[in-house]
């Protein structure tokens, strides 16, 4: 027997004892216990034993394997498509092209509707038109992966080229302004910043450039898909399950409940494991063949059909008085994008919230190119925006003969500089002070080229990290309590390796007052209550909001069940707390009844409650961001220009840390990715062809072990009073500021300002 409670609606949240975002605080804000402990990953043993099943590892009777053939022109029409050799190759089941693909609706752009998950809104293999170099032109299904790969290499196409814009220099001659940048205005103006800049005592005015980056999660994009009648089952490597299911239903004209997508394990997401052509094509080909299909992209395939971070060209101009206070802060620029996607690389976002300035001008535009849709990649906008802004701050500090931390102290704002809202919790300067003391910042000589070890010049640099807090509405959580005291919390969310399931198990144990061993966290499947996406460092807080709501209903239901014969008789939600496997009066230790006792007395073997998170009113009322101070020491060869990062320390202010171990790994991972951004990563997009040339891990350089020093992580661990659990997301902030910290250290070592990434040795010779 179970009972299902109605979802909590918004008005219910005004009931006493309920969390009202922006009005009341999460009652467990200051409750410790399991929260924060360095609990090892719950799924660790499964992974090291190879028992964690990833998307390309689900067996099916009659499974066939897919391989893709890609276009070799950036824009044009297919005039001839010869699939005869492929069709005749051993083991081939079928070859699907635009000529025989099932008719499908085009995806809708992510955020354009509640079920939209499209990284682009181009139709997928529905016509002869080519929109980017690398677009899939054929899907081969075969009995083995090797046979599919071989046959795909036999597909031949001729094209009638159409004029293509594949040069950024050309594209930016006709810039376009978007209506909004992820819901924010594309232009922010406070006062006359250009005039203030001209009049300022001290000025910095520079152009900074960042290149294209590609997603290179260790797990290649993969899906195993199967149709049963009009029901579609998709095992995916995915970070937006419900959106993917809804979008696939829309594309194939199915009722939403006919599509089930699951993704229990993902080998790295970073914004790349969303809905791209390969899942759609696998579903279409499976339908055509009447057989289950597994698709796993090659590494080259990831470069061809999964977008990455776009390139940026940014101007930062700072005008300051001799005391360092900013008269003008200007951050403008342009990024490459397409007409068929919606990822604007919001590089002006950091400057909207970081520093006090008397006048501000922030503006960003896009230059349309004929290329694969660019997309979100770990801290889109903030990663590259902080590179430009934080290098400029360093340049200004030098002109002012001020320590760069002291400069930041002087321009620390009282309230959000563009919205005027109060900060929910901001301890940036604390993070700097803590980090500086630990790193030995006082040993830095502000004058460049003063430290050396043989041919190696040594320098130190710092930069601010920042990333917004965001909580998505719409997520729900279900709590199931059994008579044995076991608690299962379910919601269709994601763990791409960051430790979601582990941190949430800790959270649930603490919130419901049960041992963590009694908690199961169910996630990764669209048959569970609707979840939120894992993106924008939002998932933890978003799950938190849903679990709070469900837990409130859970306690209310238990109080009802407890009835008049309980020590809890007459108590309301506002008067009780969960503890020791039950519910107790907040101030009277004697009034307590265990969950098991309540269920037993009411004759139930389980209780099931489900509720949806309250709307994120805290984001409207407060300026909510995480902060950090990144410290870097580099060694630069005076002979070859080679840069080696010799020490790195990140000091973060990201609210309550839920798991010291997995959080530290998250921060470190972000910093390592930031070292790649600073020193090695660049997708070589050939402007003659619009094709990415270095489409392999041998040629696209992510940092390897020897590029990464020991990294030290500190955090303030100060709960944000407005956030569930007091926690802000931590997935992305680690990469922010790293590019600038490295570049500023390189300057301190060599006296050379490198304003275009990556900082390769030729730029320092």
């Amino acid at each position, binding site marked *: 027997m179970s009972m299902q409670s109605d979802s909590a609606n918004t008005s219910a949240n005004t009931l006493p004892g309920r969390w009202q975002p922006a009005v009341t605080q999460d009652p467990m804000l200051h409750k410790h216990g399991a929260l924060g402990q360095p609990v090892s990953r719950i799924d660790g043993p499964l992974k090291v034993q190879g028992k964690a099943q990833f998307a390309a590892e689900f067996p099916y009777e009659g499974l066939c394997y897919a391989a893709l053939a890609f276009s*070799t022109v950036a824009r044009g029409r297919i005039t001839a498509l010869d699939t005869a050799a492929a069709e005749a190759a*051993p083991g081939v089941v079928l070859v699907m092209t635009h000529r025989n693909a099932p008719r499908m609706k085009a995806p809708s752009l992510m955020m354009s509707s509640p079920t939209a998950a499209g990284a682009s809104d181009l139709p997928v293999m529905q016509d002869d038109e080519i929109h980017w*170099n690398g677009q899939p032109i054929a899907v081969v299904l075969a009995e083995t992966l*090797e046979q599919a*790969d*071989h046959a795909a*290499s036999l597909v031949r196409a001729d094209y009638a080229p159409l004029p293509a814009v594949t040069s950024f220099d050309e594209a930016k001659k006709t810039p376009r302004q978007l209506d909004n940048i992820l819901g924010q205005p594309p232009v922010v103006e406070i006062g006359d910043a250009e005039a203030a800049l001209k009049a300022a005592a001290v000025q910095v005015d520079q152009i900074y450039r960042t290149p294209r980056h590609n997603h290179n999660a260790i797990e290649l994009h993969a899906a195993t898909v199967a149709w049963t009648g009009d029901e579609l089952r998709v095992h995916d490597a995915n970070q937006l399950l419900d959106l993917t299911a809804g979008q696939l239903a829309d594309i194939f004209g199915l009722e939403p409940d006919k599509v089930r997508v699951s993704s229990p394990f993902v080998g790295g997401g970073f914004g790349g494991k969303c809905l791209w052509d390969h899942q759609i094509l696998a579903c279409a080909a499976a339908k055509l063949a009447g057989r289950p299909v597994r698709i796993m992209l090659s590494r080259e395939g990831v470069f061809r059909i999964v977008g990455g971070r776009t390139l940026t060209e940014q101007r930062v101009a700072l005008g300051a008085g001799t005391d360092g206070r900013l008269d003008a802060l200007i951050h403008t620029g342009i990024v490459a994008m397409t007409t068929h996607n919606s990822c604007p690389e919001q590089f002006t976002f950091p400057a909207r919230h970081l520093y006090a300035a008397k006048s501000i001008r922030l503006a960003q535009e896009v230059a349309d190119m004929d290329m694969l849709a660019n997309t979100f990649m770990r801290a889109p906008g903030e990663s590259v925006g902080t590179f430009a802004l934080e290098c400029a701050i360093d340049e200004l500090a030098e002109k002012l003969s001020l320590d760069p931390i002291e400069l930041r102290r002087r321009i620390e704002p009282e309230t959000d500089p563009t919205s005027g809202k109060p900060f929910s919790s901001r301890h940036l300067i604390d993070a700097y002070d803590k980090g500086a003391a630990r790193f030995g910042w006082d040993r830095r000589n502000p004058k460049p080229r003063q430290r050396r070890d*043989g*041919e190696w010049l040594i320098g130190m640099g710092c930069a601010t990290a920042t990333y917004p807090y965001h909580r998505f509405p719409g997520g729900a959580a279900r709590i199931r309590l059994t008579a044995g005291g076991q608690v299962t919390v379910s919601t269709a969310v994601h763990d791409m390796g960051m430790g979601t399931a582990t941190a949430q198990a800790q959270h649930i144990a603490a919130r419901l007052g049960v041992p963590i061993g009694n908690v199961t966290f169910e996630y990764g499947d669209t048959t569970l209550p609707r979840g939120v996406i894992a993106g924008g460092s939002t998932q933890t807080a978003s799950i938190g909001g849903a679990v709070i709501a469900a837990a409130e209903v859970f306690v209310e239901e238990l109080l009802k069940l407890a009835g008049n014969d309980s020590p809890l008789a007459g108590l309301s939600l506002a008067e009780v707390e969960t503890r020791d496997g039950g519910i107790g009066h907040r101030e009277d230790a004697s009034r307590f009844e265990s969950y098991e006792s309540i269920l037993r007395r009411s004759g139930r073997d389980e209780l099931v409650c489900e509720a949806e998170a309250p709307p994120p009113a805290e984001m409207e009322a407060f300026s909510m961001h995480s902060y950090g101070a990144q410290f870097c020491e580099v060694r630069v060869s005076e*002979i*070859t*220009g*080679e840069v*080696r990062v010799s020490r790195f320390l990140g000091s973060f202010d990201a609210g309550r840390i839920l798991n010291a171990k997995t959080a530290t790994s998250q921060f470190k991972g972000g910093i390592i990715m930031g070292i790649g951004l600073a*020193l*090695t990563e660049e997708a*070589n997009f*050939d402007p*003659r*062809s619009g*094709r990415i*040339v*270095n*489409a*392999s891990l*041998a*040629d696209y*350089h992510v*940092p*390897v*072990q*020897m*590029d990464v020093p020991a990294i030290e992580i500190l955090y303030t661990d100060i709960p944000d009073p407005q956030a569930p659990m007091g926690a802000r997301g931590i997935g992305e902030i680690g990469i922010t500021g790293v590019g600038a910290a490295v570049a500023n250290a390189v300057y301190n070592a060599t006296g050379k300002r490198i304003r275009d990434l990556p900082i*390769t*040795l*030729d730029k320092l*010779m």
Partner: protein
Amino acid sequence: MNPFTYERASDTSAAIELAKGNAAARYLGGGTNLVDLMRETVERPEMLVDVTGLPRGIEPRADGGLLIGAAATNTALAADGHVRAHYPLLARAILAGASAQIRNMATVGGNILQRTRCRYFYDTAAACNKRQPGAGCDARDGFNRYHAILGASPACVATHPSDMCVALAALDATVHLDGPAGPRSIALSDLHRLPGDRPDIETELKAGELITAVELPPLLFARRSTYRKVRDRASYAFALVSVAAALDIDDSGVVRDVRLALGGVAHKPWRASAAEAALKGRPAGPESFRAAAEAELAAATGLRDNAFKIELAKRTIVAVLGELTGDDA
């Protein structure tokens, strides 16, 4: 990858017999490059003859030299005590290459015959005279950071990617071959060709010929030798420039003999003969090192992305020779 047949050769003559007369046969060592190229359909052999079972011994010769079986792994050669003591530049060059896993698989013969990593060569959608003679060269005006500054031709600007071969070139290694027409030997420096107008023909190997061994002549002063590789990340990246050097200085500080070879600069491991000639009899010091480097790079030309390598090569030569002199500068 195209379908192929696989044969494992029991000995050298069996390998040659298996491949004889079959233009679509390839000898397979560790497969760390050939199999990649097959996956990209750049190589489309119909038959692979696995030669990893052929001699892999590393044996000192009576004259103080060393005979290395072609099937020896890179790891084994780099770890060999004789190599580490007498030819340290070779051990260092090998360890500068690839990754531990790749070196465990890769053979000496395969390392020598690995092909360029020019991405336009790998991408069958690009124009490449090496892959398809007469097709053109997309690298010349494309991304050519890793490309040649010496000995290139209008047809091809690719570089040979091996680190090991740079050390072998400096050491005057001899490559022993066997084939349908019988055994023969060739200097390592003569084995690889400059691209000219036929970049598709990369070595002097004749059809069906197989590398059976590499022989190092004795070189006493190679005890004072090293290898420096300059690259875009600290490991697992091909050389922008590398320098293998051995230096023999007499008591008066004059260069008695020197061996110098460059990697990452040309279609073949580049023996720096001009620099060697300029150094012999000169005082070992930064000025003569720089002059020698200038002499070697006098003919160098840069492309869009790689002109910095001319100065980088010069600086690295000076630094390596300085290191061998015991001079910190």
